[in-house]
């Protein structure tokens, strides 16, 4: 090969060349070596640079999200600032920045601080430093945040006894306790914010009683949401049955009369039970009302807070490291396993986790058999030709269709055609009630829409895996008298399995991260009921019972949650930390899926590594 290259007639030697014709072959090679392209060095830099740039961008994004997400739940100290104009602010510092302060803005400042502002501006060469304090107490001040200019601060302290109160509603509260009432009796009253002994006693009392109050609150919630929910579902079902009989047999029929009687009976029962449950809940609530803590804000306003309304309270400036860590982890715990509150900007994302998992798994169940069968046909059965090539190109193009288009298709076809047909067939009473079961956004339609979206990924991956099965294996099977299907089932598929699995998991990762189409076919801001619930086995798809999986329900989704928090929230500054933690969680889930793919592939590949040679 090399020699044949050397023998190719060379162009006449350059006039500058002093060598004779005998050395022309060698000289030609030398000449080629001098050209830029032949050296290869610049290409190394170019390609390496491109890679480095891509990696750097990805790493920066990940590190940013990771850092922001990981620090979110760490307790920060409470800053108490007395401003030059006499106002007092207290809160947690969320961020700080330098900004350009122009003279007109200085003129608008209170006269006491104008001088200081000018001095600060001069010192900072036109820039001044300011901080964003999360001052909370929304119910008193009507705002969550305050910017404070450093130059406008007269004194700044971190008071030992100041408390952060995370409330169920209206956001955080910052203040100093004044007194605590336990079971209706005032236990201690502090004499000002420096009365350490009394304040410590209040703190102890709070720690002692908070858990029992919360337990009672959880019990109330269980009664009001879960127990009453079941009761009202019972009534609804009886009513729908009655409606169904009305539609099928008419108002005069015996069936209808029977169903109506049944409904009346159920309604009476439910009403009775509801009253009982409400009474029980009311009793617990009354008990809880006896527990409250009176707080004084930095501005000196007093406020009573029910212990039942408090998620957690802590003295932010008086925490040991272990206390900080346990606070940190309890917040993560809440983030994972609690329901969201405050328009999703506080609390947890449990429903979104469950929703995402249910939807992704259902999608995988739908997409894998479909995609693998299609790939099998393309690779094993279809004769190669223009049609097969066209189909392949079409599949690859399908992967490039904007995902929102799939969403529109899903809404139009799955929800409004398939869903509506299912409703007409199996849920006429719900339909008559103007309350469609499947003819609306639902987790099943979201799964199928995403299945459609990711089927090209699976087909391409499965085809590649099938193509990687050595032909000698197939020949071996055919030579033994195996039919095509036997060969595929016993030899080809097991061999291609690692590749197919990898493709599946990659498709799942892609599907789990998708948002746009979901907004149209079932993802919602707040879902009252989970699409998967071990406590409720009444799920059904038409006549098929599906146990704990409720395919008809709309669901919360982590990706949609991020969008909702970041861009639809009333209080986006307060929701920002949640955006980062949720993003981190979603990235972790997708990364976990990818790692699983790698691990699975490595494990299964081992089976196919030949010991020969």
């Amino acid at each position, binding site marked *: 090969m090399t020699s044949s290259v050397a023998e190719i007639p060379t162009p006449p030697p350059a006039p500058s060349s002093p060598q004779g014709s005998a050395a022309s072959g060698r000289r030609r090679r030398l000449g080629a070596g001098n050209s830029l392209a032949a050296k290869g060095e610049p290409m190394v830099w170019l390609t390496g640079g491109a890679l480095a740039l891509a990696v750097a961008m990805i790493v920066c994004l990940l590190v940013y999200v990771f850092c922001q997400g990981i620090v979110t739940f760490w307790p920060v100290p409470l800053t108490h600032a007395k401003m030059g104009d006499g106002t007092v602010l207290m809160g947690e510092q969320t961020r700080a920045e330098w900004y350009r302060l122009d003279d007109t803005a200085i003129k608008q400042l209170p006269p006491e601080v104008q001088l200081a502002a000018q001095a600060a501006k001069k010192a900072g060469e036109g820039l001044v430093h300011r901080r964003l304090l999360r001052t909370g107490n929304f119910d008193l001040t009507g705002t969550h945040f305050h910017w404070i200019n450093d130059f406008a601060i007269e004194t700044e302290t971190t008071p030992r006894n100041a408390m952060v109160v995370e409330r169920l509603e209206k956001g955080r509260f910052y203040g100093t306790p004044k007194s605590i009432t336990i079971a209706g009796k005032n236990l201690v009253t502090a004499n000002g914010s420096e009365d350490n002994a009394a304040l410590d006693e209040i703190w102890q009392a709070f720690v002692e009683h908070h858990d029992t109050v919360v337990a009672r609150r959880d019990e109330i919630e269980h009664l009001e949401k879960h127990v009453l929910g079941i009761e009202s579902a019972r009534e609804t079902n009886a009513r729908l049955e009655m409606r169904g009989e009305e539609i099928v047999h008419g108002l005069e029929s015996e069936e209808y009369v029977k169903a109506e009687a049944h409904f009346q009976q159920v309604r009476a029962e439910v009403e009775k039970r509801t009253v009982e449950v409400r009474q029980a809940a009311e009793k617990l609530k009354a008990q809880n009302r006896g527990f409250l803590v009176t707080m004084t804000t930095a501005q000196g306003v007093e406020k009573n807070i029910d212990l039942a309304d408090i998620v957690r309270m802590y003295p932010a400036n008086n925490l040991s490291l272990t206390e900080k860590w346990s606070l940190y982890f309890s917040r993560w715990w809440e983030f994972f396993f609690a329901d969201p509150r405050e328009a999703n900007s506080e609390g947890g994302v449990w429903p979104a986790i469950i929703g995402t998992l249910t939807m992704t798994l259902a999608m995988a169940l739908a997409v894998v058999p479909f995609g693998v069968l299609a790939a099998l046909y393309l690779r094993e059965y279809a*004769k*190669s030709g223009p049609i097969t090539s066209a189909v392949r190109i079409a599949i690859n193009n399908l992967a490039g269709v904007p995902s929102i288009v799939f969403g529109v298709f899903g809404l139009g076809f799955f929800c409004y055609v398939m869903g509506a047909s299912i409703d007409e067939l199996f849920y006429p009473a719900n339909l008559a009630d103007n309350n469609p079961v499947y003819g609306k956004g639902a987790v099943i339609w979201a799964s199928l829409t995403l299945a459609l979206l990711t089927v090209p990924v699976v087909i391409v991956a499965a085809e590649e895996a099938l193509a990687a099965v*050595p*032909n*000698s*294996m*197939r*020949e*071996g*099977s*055919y*030579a*033994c*008298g*195996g*039919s095509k299907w*036997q060969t595929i089932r*016993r*030899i080809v598929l*097991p*061999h291609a399995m690692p590749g197919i699995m990898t493709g599946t998991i990659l498709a799942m990762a892609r599907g789990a991260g998708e948002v746009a189409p979901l907004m149209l076919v079932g993802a919602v801001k707040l879902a009252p009921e989970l699409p998967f619930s071990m406590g409720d086995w009444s799920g059904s798809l038409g006549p098929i019972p599906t146990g704990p999986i409720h395919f008809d329900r709309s669901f919360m989704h982590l990706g949609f949650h991020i969008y909702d928090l970041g861009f639809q929230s009333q209080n986006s500054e307060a929701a920002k930390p949640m955006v980062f933690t949720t993003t981190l969680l979603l990235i972790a889930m997708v990364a976990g899926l990818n790692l699983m793919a790698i691990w699975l592939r490595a494990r299964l590949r081992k*089976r*196919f*590594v*030949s*010991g*020969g*040679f």
Partner: protein
Amino acid sequence: MTEQLATHTKPTATDSQDAGVAIQPQPPAETAKEGRLEAVARGEVVPAIIDPALEDEKHVLEISNFNLWYGKKQALLDISMSVPRGKVTAMIGPSGCGKSTLLRCVNRMNDLIDTVRIKGDMLLNGDTIYAPTVDVIELRKRMGMVFQKPNPFPMSIFENVVYPLRIDGERNKDVLESVCERSLRGAALWDEVKDRLHESGLSLSGGQQQRLCIARAIASEPEVLLLDEPCSALDPIATGKVEDLIHELSGEYSVLIVTHNMQQATRISDYTAFMYLGQLIEYSPTATMFTGPKLKETEDYVTGRFG
């Protein structure tokens, strides 16, 4: 084009054949060499020299005027030969002359390649192989095949061996086990693997893998065994074992084996066919082939002077 040339050169070919049958006088063979291989290289059809001894045999496989094209390229030209029953027939010839192709045609393995076109027919015990009505799967079950490169399946050794039976739906464990043992013993592999039958077939060494493939090929007791250089991946000891195996199998089975090893051909085969560039050149009893071939070019090839 080819046929025209063929008719054109026919006289020469007949001449040389006559000369070959007449044998002895060396000079005619010399001239024949020039004419014959040159003619083959030009793509002319040169009739093969076939020893009359073959006509006395019972034939398990008859190949008649078989042609094969890979796309536009013709790989087999007008091959006619009969494989005797219960004997070992070796096929020799330089690399790329079409030995594997011919072997793969016997169990219609070439159906799997889209570009392949064939003309002519083969008969297996009188049944046609190349007719649209033939059930290819049933046909393949009557033959066992071992490929040039070992191709065990990614499953246990046991499952590898009983694969042909599994395909037939055999479930009886006793039957499967006895077949497995018999086949592995037959392939001289039993002693090495009897304690690890449930390990992956891929965990074996290359030579063991090849013997595993042989075991698989004889598991369903085929009428014909097609071996494509079964020993190319084996060490001398394993080769010896396989050769012994082939010896034992002959008589019961008819074996068609491709080999590049002349000694091996002399050791194990009863008949030898010499192919060159897609054509059958000479086909004789092995003894004749290696001691006094009718053609000079055959002698050159088997003695290593060319090819």
